[in-house]
């Protein structure tokens, strides 16, 4: 991971959050998370989740909440995949 790449991702997610800022906080966070889920590559999602877990200071409140939703979705997806393998 490079700092430049991370900086870009932080800027991108904050911009996405700002553009969904007219919605109520929870709905906005859901929308941002859904957007990342649909349009960001796996490596980008991983990078922003790791940043949120390590510090996340530069994320706007909506962005921070969105990454939390994204992280939860990633865990659920992984658990689903693990269950499928075990089955």
């Amino acid at each position, binding site marked *: *991971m*490079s700092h*430049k*790449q991370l900086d*870009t991702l932080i800027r*991108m997610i904050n*911009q*996405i959050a*700002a*553009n*969904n*800022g*007219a*919605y109520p906080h929870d709905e906005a966070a859901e929308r941002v998370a859904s*957007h990342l*889920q*649909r*349009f*960001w*590559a*796996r*490596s*980008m*999602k991983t990078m922003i989740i790791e940043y949120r877990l390590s510090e996340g200071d530069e994320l706007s409140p909506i962005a921070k909440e969105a990454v939390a939703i994204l992280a939860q979705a990633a865990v659920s997806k992984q658990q689903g995949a693990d269950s499928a393998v075990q089955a």
Partner: protein
Amino acid sequence: MRVEKFNPDKDYGTPARLSETLVSVQIDGIEITVPEGTSVMRAAALADINIPKLCATDSLDAFGSCRLCAVQIEGHRGYPASCTTTVYNGMKVTTQNEKLGKLRRNVMELYISDHPLDCLTCPANGNCELQDMAGDVGLREVRYGYNGEHHLDSKKDESNPYFSFDPSKCIVCSRCVRACEETQGTFALTIDGRGFDSKVSAGQNQDFMDSECVSCGACVQACPTATLMEKSIIDMGQPEHSVVTTCAYCGVGCSFKAEMKGDKVVRMLPYKGGDANHGHSCVKGRFAFGYATHKDRIKSPMIRNAINEPWQEVSWDEAYKFAAEKLKAIQARYGRDSVGGITSSRCTNEEAYLVQKLVRTAFGNNNTDTCARVCHSPTGYGLKVTMGESAGTQNFDSVMKSDVIMVIGANPTDAHPVFGSMMRRRLREGAQLIVADPRHIDLLKTPHLKKAQHLALKPGTNVALINAIAHVVVTEGLEDKAFVEKRCDRESYNAWREFIQQDRHSPENVEAVTGVPAGAVREAAVTYARAENGSIYYGLGVTEHSQGSTMVMGIANLAMATGNIGREGVGVNPLRGQNNVQGSCDMGSFPHELSGYQHVSNAEARTHFEKVWGVTIDDEPGLRIPNMFDSAIAGTFKALYVQGEDIAQSDPGTQHVEMALRSLDCLIVQDLFLNETAKFAHVLLPGSSFLEKNGTFTNAERRINRVRKVMPAVAGKEDWEITMDLSNALGYPMHYNHPSEIMDEIASLTPTFSGVNYQRLDELGSIQWPCNEDNPVGMPTMHVEDFPIGKGRFSVTEYVATDERTNSRFPLLLTTGRILSQYNVGAQTRRTDNQVWHDEDRLDLHPHDAEVRGIKEDDWVGISSRAGQTVLRARITDKVLPGVVYTTFHHPGSGANVITTDSSDWATNCPEYKVTAVQVERVSQPSEWQRNFKSFEELQLKLLQGDEHKTHA
């Protein structure tokens, strides 16, 4: 007999009339039934009775000047002109008898008495209407001699690079003048003088090049003699066969007859049967095809290990082997996701499909993207979210039923000229025009324009403006409540309505943001909302912003709120830049979706593809182009396959792009030329132009048009063959014998294309998708009954100002665009005579901004942004607002994208080309980047052609 069949190769003399009322007439004893308003000449032609004519042609309104088409009508005195006389029930017409024959011979005799008798050496020999008519009427002598007053010594005008004007051959039929007015809408030509002194004149008695002529070729095509004649015909003679194909320039997708002599293109003639262009053309499609045989074409594959090494010419197999080994080694070392590909919006649907298929199969990831990323990706996003389909809603002809035309961030007369002409025709007929653009575009100068409004907003404030317009619509009760109730999702509508009616969106409150007077916004809103049919056309001035997607959704909101969706004359119409932007998006080029906009997370769709392709498809999106660049610089993305795109010139932040390209271990470029990107490449695969391949393009109105091969591929292979071979070398088998087989596969996997195949395309001429069981011949107007998502969804469109703002250091806003004669990065048009119109990119700035900086016309000026600096010559014009500067990006050495930044659309990463904060000052030398560019270019040309070039042993 009832006649309706249309043969595009026949000239019916006068235009078709659309009427449900039919009229029966008898012509030379034959009963014919035609629509009311049809001319006698056309009715006769429909029955294969061909009345002699000179001033008439079916692309122009009847004029009635030549008198050659005189007929006799029972019960009428004299000999009325059949072109200007319309039929009525029971009319009895005689087109041939002794009196008429004598009259026509007399007319012809007068014409020929002032016409050079050089038929055998005339370039129109064999394709001259005057010659044909002389034969038809049986002219055998000219009694007047040739010693009287005449025009035979008139001087030729050779100023235009593509056609000559020889007044000595002119019969003053006015077809050229009328074509310039009616077809093109420029009004550059006129008949100067009276009586015998009448002559065709360009502008104010100027040379064609000095006049307002835009070289569309309509006058040349309309000319019945050799007066206006293509220089290629003068040089090479008349063609011996022709093939109908589709232009590879802008998103209008004009049909042309490529007229050939053997395998040489003699002339590109706009095809009357083309449903996008109806026989019209622009200077690019009509004349600028010489790049296909330019000496700069790369003719054999080349490889090298590093970009400072000479290129080695190799066989195709050696090139594939070299590329495949590198790609495999990179994936083995850096992982499956370390490579990707970029499809081209200039190549065919089949070729774009194959590249993304190669990425998803042979590469095994979703790292595929397309140049639509940097132009219309917000269109795909915004229209999908609101109306459920990533495409415009209408066909081009729809504009002819618009009463109010709103053009936002588009410059159709330059960027989509043939459609621009159609729009101008509708404006002349009385439609009102609303333009929202920082620049005073030429459409606002349309001759005979009835009513127009220019909302000259500040760059970057589109969303604030569209919100203000929508605010007026809602607060003044101008919504189409019945449409909203029946067709739109109530919950999303209520949320939007609550948002948009807030007072902060009122025109008065956003006036300081947009710079547009509140009264003008209110007037525009009322005009659009009250129109019987209101249409919106938009271009890159909407999409290439940090809020490009929001603006597209704002436009869709406005159209739905006013009920301007689902019928002819209305709609939301993105004007696509390149010839196949729509198609490359349709074909699954984006990293998050498969063909037909099927998201990769959609398990059902994925399974369908996996069965046909025999691989597992990643259910997560891949990297977009800017993400690829960032990852390359970070060292995790190491190889890129680029088909027919010049990202080093076209993408923003040139230094950043160059750094990314230099970071790659393997860059494979497939292109016609050593373009800017290829200078950083390790493998160069010579591609084929549109003249050298079979396939399809999809234009801005979703129209799938056939591209037909008219000459052998210069380097031996069509682009789809190259991708197929590369895939096979990588170990993923692809076996197609013809692009039609690729289209069959596309149709089998793409619900909106399921009814498309080459046989049907040949039968119908073209098809507007969706084409499937429900719509077997396609769909000209979308969303007539419902939306693909059921109900239309309103989106809340909060205005978020771009981070790219002016300050004391960068007090001006730069916006970029294109001009008529050049196309995109100029790789094609710079290699044609179109250079005479635009051989350098200039910086346009307002006289006030120039004066305070001491800048004069033609001064060299440095343009600095937070991204970089470049130097251009200044052009001082009030076409731009004070505080705004403008340039084009057609010449690589201009470095327009050295100064554009990494600011991009929040939803799609489409770059914000239209807003860059800059400072401008007089300078005396090129920028550092330009100096580096020049030396790098010299090195790369040397490595390509110079002493250091070595052939592989």
